[in-house]
């Protein structure tokens, strides 16, 4: 959706990467990729560590020289410009605040380098924005992690960059503070209207904050889109597993009817809309998110509406986590399937060992090419 922006559109803070790639000797950190980040958007590069997301960000900042391709910021080719000549600023992982300068001077650093007037006024109002006014004369090490993080944001934002780059800015904070800062950053972004490019390995963080997410894997962009779009229509097993959790069921296409594909999964007949299948192959994975599945006790099979996908199985495990209960069900085909049920009308018969029927709306299924690894993106980094 963001790839085909017309050239004439306000190129103010657009970041346009064309064929940009990076190799270190034999190792390819980033495969040549094209990416356009539209002006004013909150864009997330999401991926596990080592997927090339930070390298991509550093190439935009100018801290890493691309092996191929060009970087355009607001229509200007900056590929060969050093970082200090680029209209971008970076919030570094673990902040990189200057330890010998106080908070005021840290924030004033960029203004002073460019010989700006009324530094005092600007710094003071910027410190107000991040609510650190009274800490102006403290040294960075006297501040808490969350406060240092805000200084790092203020130090970058005060320069009014066309693009703000954030390299895992919340990685060092504890969970509660991270949630708080996510909202804070989102608020600041809406307030200043600057393009944010945010690198993270935390899929929840990316989904909470970003308008557009590029999911990266092994130096490539796997898929690009709005958070809900990526979640509902993953295009690869990596995205399906990395963004949330997915059940992938191996199946074979047997025919089609009324825009639906008819499938057979070890003899069980299933269906999904043709439009939601990302491949033309006959061997596919049918994917369904755990929260889309409803559980019914085997004796209640008759109550299930017609036209829903069904699988028979046995409950292997259940864990109660408050808002929902998470079940693991072993299907007749021997596959373990995760199911999240809201705790509304719990059927007490559904307990480990109970025979159950899993059923869901075929429209909630998605289809992926079975030539891919079924467990891509399930590593611990995805947690």
């Amino acid at each position: 959706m963001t790839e085909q922006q017309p050239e004439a559109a306000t190129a103010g803070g657009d970041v346009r990467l064309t064929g940009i790639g990076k190799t270190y000797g034999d190792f390819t950190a980033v495969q040549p990729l094209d990416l356009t980040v539209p002006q004013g958007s909150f864009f997330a590069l999401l991926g596990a560590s080592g997927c090339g997301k930070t390298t991509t960000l550093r190439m935009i900042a100018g801290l890493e020289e691309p092996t191929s391709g060009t970087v355009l910021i607001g229509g200007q080719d900056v590929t060969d410009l050093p970082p200090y000549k680029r209209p971008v600023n970076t919030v570094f992982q673990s902040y990189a605040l200057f330890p010998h300068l106080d908070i005021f001077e840290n924030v004033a650093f960029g203004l002073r380098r460019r010989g700006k007037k009324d530094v005092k006024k600007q710094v003071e109002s910027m410190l107000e924005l991040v609510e650190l006014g009274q800490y102006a004369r403290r040294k960075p090490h006297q501040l808490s992690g969350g406060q240092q993080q805000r200084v790092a944001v203020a130090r970058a934002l005060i320069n009014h960059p066309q693009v703000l780059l954030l390299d895992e800015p919340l990685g060092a904070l504890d969970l509660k503070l991270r949630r708080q800062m996510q909202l804070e950053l989102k608020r600041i972004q809406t307030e200043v209207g600057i393009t944010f490019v945010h690198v993270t390995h935390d899929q929840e963080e990316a989904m909470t904050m970003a308008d557009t997410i590029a999911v990266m894997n092994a130096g490539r962009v796997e898929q690009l889109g709005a958070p809900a779009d990526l979640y509902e229509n993953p295009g690869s097993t990596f995205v399906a597993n990395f963004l949330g959790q997915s059940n992938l069921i191996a199946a074979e296409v047997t025919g089609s009817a009324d825009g639906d594909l008819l499938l057979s999964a070890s003899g069980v007949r299933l269906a999904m809309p043709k439009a939601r299948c990302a491949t033309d192959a006959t061997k596919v994975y049918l994917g369904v998110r755990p929260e889309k599945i409803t559980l019914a006790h085997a004796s209640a099979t008759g109550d299930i509406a017609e036209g829903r996908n069904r699988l028979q199985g046995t409950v292997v495990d259940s864990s109660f986590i408050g808002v929902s209960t998470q079940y693991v069900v072993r299907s007749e085909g021997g596959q373990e399937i995760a199911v999240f049920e809201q705790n509304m009308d719990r059927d007490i018969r559904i307990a480990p060992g109970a025979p159950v029927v899993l059923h869901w709306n075929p429209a909630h299924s998605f289809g992926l090419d079975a030539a891919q690894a079924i467990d891509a993106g399930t590593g611990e980094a995805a947690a």
Partner: protein
Amino acid sequence: MTTTTEAAPPQVVPLEAARKKRRKLTAYWLLLPGIAWLVVFFAIPMVYQGSTSLQTGSLEQGFKLTWHFATYWDALVEYKWHFVRSFSYAAIATVLCLAIGYPLAYTIAFKANQRWRNVILILVIAPFFTSFLIRTLAWKTILSDGGPVVGALNHLHLLALSDAVGLTSGHRVLATPLAVVCGLTYNFLPFMILPLYTSLERIDPRLHEAANDLYARPFTIFRKVTFPISLPGVVAGTLLTFIPASGDYINAQLLGSPSEQMVGNGIQKQFLNVLAYPTAAALSFILMALILGMVTVYMRKAGTEELV
């Protein structure tokens, strides 16, 4: 009433208290060897020297404590040029050490890869494997009249220049201020490089990237980030170079002539040749006081208290 309580005090409490007290004392016991060392080798000699400096007499008639403070004034007047030379040679050597040491330490810390880093560090420390005396004697050969340095300087007509400014004289290097400064610089260079390296090596390279990102050019990054953060290393290095260099006498003795003598040579002469112990002791105290004063002013100026 009172007698009964005193006769049968609760047994447990004093035992507990005693144990607690003993545990508290452990820390002090551990300090004992260090304190003993300081008392025997620092405090007692200092007091002894202090009293010596205020004595009068001679070796034959014996020395007597007469609180003769005039010795200090006489020593200062007699050796004022020695002091001037000591501090100016040491200052020049310190500046040279900084000029040579900083780029080297910077290279080791930021530019060299792990293997080269170790190689260069070993090379920096390598001179310590031979004695101070032998290293200085080697410089005597290097700077000798027929040696390569004099030849090269002559060839470049630089000796005429250094003769003119008084660094050398008579177209020779040995037995001139230049030779003494060279010796001091060489001998104390590692004491400059090592603290500089330690302070530079600790700097997070991301700070350079952050400064670069915030519109600082490479030289500005050095001026505004790298150098200020390495200041504690600069202070430590200059102190470790300047203090021993200003008290040194070997370099002046071996590489200089009588007109390059430093305070150390004066103390040595008064103590070993003239056997005027009070004058030697007074000179030592004056040297110590002057260094202490200079260091205090320097540390204040450098403003490093909050950086360390």
